[in-house]
């Protein structure tokens, strides 16, 4: 199991591969676990590739919307008025519209995908952050204190895991008025989505953290801290939490794609973002509900591909990160 990251390699014993690295004629020096993990990660081409893609995606989400054309401009002239499908092959792909145009409206698909990336990523990141905060907090408490506190929190997590989440989300979005909590429109909707998704994904994180804490709290360094007079909060924050950075990072990167898919599912069901603001799920849902995917498959393939690539990149990166931080947990 992982040891504190700030403990030097010498204390924990140098792993053989790190030692082998150091023997290339240079002076042998101690490396921290963080450095070792980074070295392992660097050698994982797939993880690095995924990381580059994720960074690219984040840049697109931040700067893309300023570079693309207005996503709400209708181009009736690019649409076949009888069939409603885009003129030209592959969904009307052209220089002006590299990803083609939307059937029925002629809106630029590239612009909508790019702006959709921003919405999808904001929701996925913030919802994940919320889930991580709640999950780590309750996981730490449950694992460290044990007893009835553990029972209560663990059972609560079980209830949340067993909850018919989608049904609840649909109902909640349906009953919350269009103006509430001082917010309205899409700001409110995004907030609600973040809250719902985050609030229902924390038990996954909570369970993992609880399991880690259960084993960590029996370790010598915790006993040592306790015998030196450290109290609960100190041990939790200064001794246990640093040891959990690895799993938290890994499971966050794995939670993000799940949340992207969940946002897509909610938008697909019509309780996501309010149109005309695009999101990937909304674009997919639109392609299916209007039946346009029969005659213009590109309209479905493009947002579908965006979701697929993003989810895959996050997953591969998360896997690589896990392997690098904790090679034994394969």
């Amino acid at each position, binding site marked *: 199991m992982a040891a504190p990251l700030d403990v030097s390699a010498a204390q924990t014993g140098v792993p053989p591969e790190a030692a082998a690295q150091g023997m290339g004629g240079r002076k042998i020096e101690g490396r921290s676990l963080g450095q070792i993990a980074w070295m392992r990660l660097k050698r994982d081409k797939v993880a690095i590739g995924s990381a580059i893609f994720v960074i690219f995606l984040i840049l697109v989400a931040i700067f893309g919307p300023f570079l693309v054309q207005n996503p709400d401009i209708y181009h009736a002239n690019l649409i076949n008025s*009888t069939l409603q499908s885009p003129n030209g092959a592959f969904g009307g792909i052209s220089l002006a519209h590299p990803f083609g145009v939307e059937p*029925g*409206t002629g809106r630029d698909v590239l612009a909508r995908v790019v702006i959709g990336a921003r919405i999808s990523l904001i929701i996925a990141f913030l919802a994940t952050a919320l889930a991580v905060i709640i999950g780590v907090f309750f996981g730490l408490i449950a694992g460290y204190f044990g007893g009835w506190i553990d029972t209560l929190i663990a059972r609560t997590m079980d209830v949340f895991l067993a909850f018919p989440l989608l049904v609840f989300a649909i109902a909640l979005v349906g009953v919350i008025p269009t103006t509430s909590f001082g917010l309205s429109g899409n700001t409110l909707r995004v907030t609600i989505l973040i809250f719902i998704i985050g609030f229902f994904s924390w038990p996954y994180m909570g369970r993992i953290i609880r399991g880690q804490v259960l084993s960590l709290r029996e370790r010598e360094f915790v006993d040592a801290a306790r015998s030196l007079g450290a109290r609960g909060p100190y041990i939790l924050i200064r001794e246990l939490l640093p040891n959990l950075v690895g799993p938290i990072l890994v499971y966050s990167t794995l939670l993000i794609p799940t949340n992207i898919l969940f946002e897509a599912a909610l938008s697909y069901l*019509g*309780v996501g973002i*309010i*149109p005309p603001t695009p999101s990937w799920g909304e674009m997919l849902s639109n392609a299916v*509900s209007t*039946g346009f995917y029969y*005659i213009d498959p590109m309209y479905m393939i493009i947002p579908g591909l965006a979701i697929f690539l993003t989810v895959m990149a996050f997953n591969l990166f998360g896997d690589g990160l896990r392997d690098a931080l904790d090679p034994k947990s394969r």
Partner: protein
Amino acid sequence: MISRTKMYGLGALAAAGALTLAACGGSSSPGSSNSSSSASYNEGLTAVVNPSTTASNGTLTFDLSNTPDSTDPQNTYYAFMWDFVRLYTMQLMTYKSCPGACGTQLVPDLATAPGTVSDNGLVWTYHIKPNVKFENGQTVTSEDIKYGVERTYAKSVLPNGPTYYQVLLQDPTYPGPYVDRAKNVMGLTSVTTPNSTTIQFHLQHPFSDFNYVVAISQSTPVQPSWDTGQYGGANYQLHPESTGPYKFQSYTLNKTLTLVKNPYWNAATDPEAKQLVNKIVVNMNVNQSQIDNNVVSGYADIDMGGVGVQTAAVRDKILTNPTYHANADDALSGFLRFAYLNEKVIPNVHCREAIEYAANKTTIQDAWGGPVVGGAIASTVMPPTVNGYQSFDLYNALSQPSGDIAAAKTQLKLCGKPSGFTTGLAYRTDRPQEVAAAQALQASLATVGIKAQLDGYLSGKYYTDFAGVPAYVHSHDLGIDMGGWGADWPDGYGFLDELSNGNTIAPAGNTNISEINDPSINSLFSTAANDTNAAARLAIWPQIDKKIMAQAAILPMVYQKVLLYRNPVVTNVYVDSYYGMYNYAVLGLKK
């Protein structure tokens, strides 16, 4: 009271269309799609396609994507059922079986002539044909029609049908025959039967459109002796007693219905229906994309729902392949797609006029599906299939379909808001085309500075809890509310009353969402209700239509169109302009 449930059907079908494309199959008759046919595109709109009087031994197959609300003529509110019940029932009045505009004419069916009204306008009298037989050979009497009307009062047993008799006739608290039966059969005092061929309806107020009311399937005769036991009450739908050309042979509820010839039917007494095939089979709950494929490939004859081809791939095939194209009709459904402009939320008429001018009718039409499957750009409230329709174009919807921006800006100045204003736009999230139309409207209004904030609701509660509740509309600033409307009968009263009569504004379930309460419009409605002169009434409807448009209370979008497909082996096919679908009562088959 007037809302054709066809619109519910549309919502359901859009969902069904999203399902997978299924191969042809199911229990269906082997039809042949490649038989040579001289039919042409849209021929069924104006003429009978494959006219024929020869009887066939074949089986006519209908496919239906959902189920009827009921096959009981007193208990149905679905447009396709009102069309279909004429295969096994007759009413006092009915619509003439003929293509084109003539299909909205009323003609006597069981009655010998249209009803005559007393001088005070309160008593309508019908004489019925003396020699019409039920499927058991017994003669139809006026008491049987009265019993049918009584059944419509039994809402706890038969909840689905319209409530015109309760609203219009005296004795509105009559509990229905199932409660009443123990005491006294035929207890409804407001319908009298002086003799076995005469029936009289006693109204609370004069209502000159009463002939249309008795053309609804609820005036079907029912023998009290049939409405007991195995086929009594709610189970009457399993075998309604036939007076039409066909009778029920078997009905597995909500699955398969088989009709066979009714031997007691006489063509001479029922000229509006025909008995040309041996058997009629209805397959229910068939996946819509399967229906579309079945009809095009000849495995089924008619899509009974009548909402047109929904599957994009099949639609594409029909529109691009000349063989299939010739067998399609692009029919007006009688439905208007529009937006209510609420007069309380946007009180200044010039602001509403700015919306009328600024709306880009072309992109909105595309959002509804384009000129073929969406509809024709509308400039009036009444669609062309309604008696009393007059074409006019107050806001240049037809001459400048992409929006008259200059005029819109002028109106905004007159309204005192030259830079535009902000208002809510209510729509139904579970209707993809309505979502698209709301966005198209929003985008076009933005070009003149009118900011419409989209506010989506689920269609199930749209009228009961949100857009149909004036207090909610006011508090949420919903100045624009999407809507759809079809009439229970094709004249101005049927179409306009619930949309624009000030008396119809209700605290919930409101259909006059614009909250039009104009004394001049209200008085035109009461004049029309009292005037028994059909021609005079016909002149009133366009006046009301123009008044609604002049105060910009409704933004018409499209007269809805449906792309119907007729299997080339079917004879006597044409679009009945009242139902907006094929006339099911007269269909035959080639050998």
